[in-house]
C-alpha cells in the first residue's frame, strides 16, 4: 500500500472530475474510430464519431487497427517505365527492395503501392466499376507519376500495378509459383505544371 506521504499527493476532487471528463472524451476518440471503419461498420458508430472528428483529426487517432486483417493478402508494387528526352527508357518499381534503404524507407514507399492498390479494381472488373474507381485512384497515381518524372527527368512515364502472386505451401514445395497480375495505370507526361 502507498504510505500517507504518497496519498497526500492525490488530486483534489474538482481536478479529478475535470480530468475524468477529459479522459472519457479522449478514450471515446480512441475507441470510436476503429468501430466506425474500415467497413464493415455500423451507422451508430459513424454517428457517434461525428462530434469526435476534430479531436480524432487533431491528435491523429483515425485508425482502424486492422493489421493483416481480414486476411494477409498478396503484396503489390507499382512498376514504371520512363522515357527520357533522348528517347531512351528507364524502368523501376515502387518499392524497390534493392534501392530503398534503410528498410523503413522501403516500407514507407511500399505503403504507396499498397494504399493505391486498395482503390484499383482488378483489370477484369466490370467497366463501370473500373470507371468509378478511377476517379478515386487517378489523382493519387498522378502524384506517383509526377514523382517518377521529377526523379528521372523523363518526359513520359507508364505505370502499372503489379499484384505479386502469393503461392500456397504446395506450390512453394513443388517450386511452381503462379504469375503476377498486371493492371495498367496509364501513361503520364508533364503538362501545365503537373502530370497529365
Amino acid at each position, binding site marked *: 500500500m502507498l504510505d500517507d506521504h504518497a496519498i497526500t499527493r492525490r488530486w483534489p476532487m474538482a481536478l479529478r472530475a475535470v480530468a475524468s471528463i477529459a479522459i472519457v472524451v479522449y478514450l471515446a476518440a480512441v475507441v470510436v474510430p476503429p468501430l466506425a471503419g474500415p467497413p464493415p461498420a455500423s451507422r451508430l458508430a459513424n454517428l457517434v464519431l461525428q462530434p469526435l472528428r476534430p479531436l480524432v483529426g487533431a491528435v491523429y487517432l483515425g485508425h482502424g487497427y486492422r*493489421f493483416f*486483417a481480414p486476411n*494477409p493478402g498478396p503484396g503489390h508494387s507499382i512498376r514504371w517505365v520512363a522515357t527520357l528526352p533522348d528517347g531512351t527508357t528507364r524502368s523501376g518499381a515502387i518499392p524497390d*527492395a534493392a534501392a530503398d534503404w534503410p528498410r523503413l524507407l522501403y516500407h514507407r514507399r511500399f505503403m504507396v503501392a499498397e494504399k493505391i492498390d486498395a482503390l484499383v479494381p482488378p483489370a477484369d472488373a466490370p467497366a463501370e466499376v473500373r470507371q468509378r474507381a478511377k476517379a478515386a485512384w487517378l489523382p493519387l497515381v498522378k502524384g506517383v507519376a509526377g514523382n517518377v518524372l521529377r526523379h528521372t527527368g523523363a518526359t513520359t512515364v507508364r505505370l502499372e500495378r503489379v499484384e505479386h502472386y502469393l503461392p500456397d505451401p504446395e506450390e512453394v514445395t513443388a517450386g511452381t509459383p503462379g504469375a503476377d497480375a498486371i493492371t495498367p495505370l496509364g501513361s503520364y507526361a508533364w503538362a501545365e505544371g503537373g502530370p497529365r
Partner: protein
Amino acid sequence: MTASGRDRLGNAAAIGDARPQGWLAAWDAFWFTPADPLPLAAIRIATGLILAWSSLVWLCDADAFFGPRGWLPAEQVWRMNDQPWQWSWYFAAISPNTIRALAGVTLAAALMLAAGLATPLAAVVSLAGLVSAANRAPLNTFGLDDTLGLLLVGLSVGPAGACWSLDRLLAGQGRGATPSVRANVALRIIQVHLCVVYLFSGCGKLLGESWWEGTALWGAVANAQYRTLDLTGLAPHPLLVNALTLTTLWWEIGYAALIWPRLTRRAFLAVAVAVHLGIGLAMGMMEFGLAMLTANLAFVPADTMRRLFRPLMSSPPPPGLP
C-alpha cells in the same frame, strides 16, 4: 506491496462493490492513484529513439513525402484523410529548405525527448512533428506512426522526464523520482489505448477465414514484398503454421482482458515479445515491432524494471514506495 508491484487495477474492495459508489471508487483508484514514473521514463527513451530514426528516414526523401510535387500533393491529402482539424505544419511549407527544417525540428525534439532534456516541451513538439508528418503524408504511413502517436500522447500528459533524464540531472535531483498521479494517468492512457489496438486488430482478423483456418501466417511468410527472413521452409509443416497463427489470433483477442491479472500478464508480455520481434525480423518492420514493445512497457511494473536495470542504477525506490 509497492504501488508499481501491486495489481494496478487498484482498490480490490472498490472493484468488488457493484454500487455506483463502488464504480466511482474503482475509477478513482484506477486513474488517480500515484504511480512510479520509472516505466514512463523507459517508454520516453525508447519512443524518442524510434521517432528520431523515423524522422531521419523521412528526411531521406523529405521533398517526396512532404513537398508540393511529392507522392501526394497537399490538395489531394483529403482523399486519404478527411478528418476536420487534420492539420500539419508541412501544409505551410513550400520550399525544400523549409520542409527539411521542419523535419529537422521533429528530429531534434525526438533526441531531446530520448535524453530527457526540456522533456515536456520535447514531448509536445515530438507529438506535433509526428502528427504533422502523418497528416501530410498519409500515403506513406503505417502502424508504426499509429503506435508512436499513442505513446507520445501519454508522454505529453505525464512527467516523462521525472527520472532517467538530463532534466533531473541538471536540477541536481539524482535518479529517483516521486510517485505522481500524472505518471499514473499517462501510463493508464497508454495501457488502455494499447488494449484497444490489440482488441480491434484481433477482431478484424476474425472476419478472415485464413485466421480461422490457421493459415494466415503463411500469407505473411510467403509475401515476398514484406519478407526479410525466408520462412517458406514452414511449407511442409502446416500444423506448426496453424499453431503460430492461432496463438497470434487468440493472444491479440485476449490481450485486453488478460494483460491485467498478474497471473497471466507475464505470459501475455512474453508472447508480445515473440510476436513483435518475429514480425520485426521476418517482415522487415523492426521499428513497428519495437514501438509496440515500447507500448507494452506500460504494463511492466516499476520494481521489475528496477530489478532488470539494477546494474545501471544505484538509487533506491522513490519516496512514497516502501
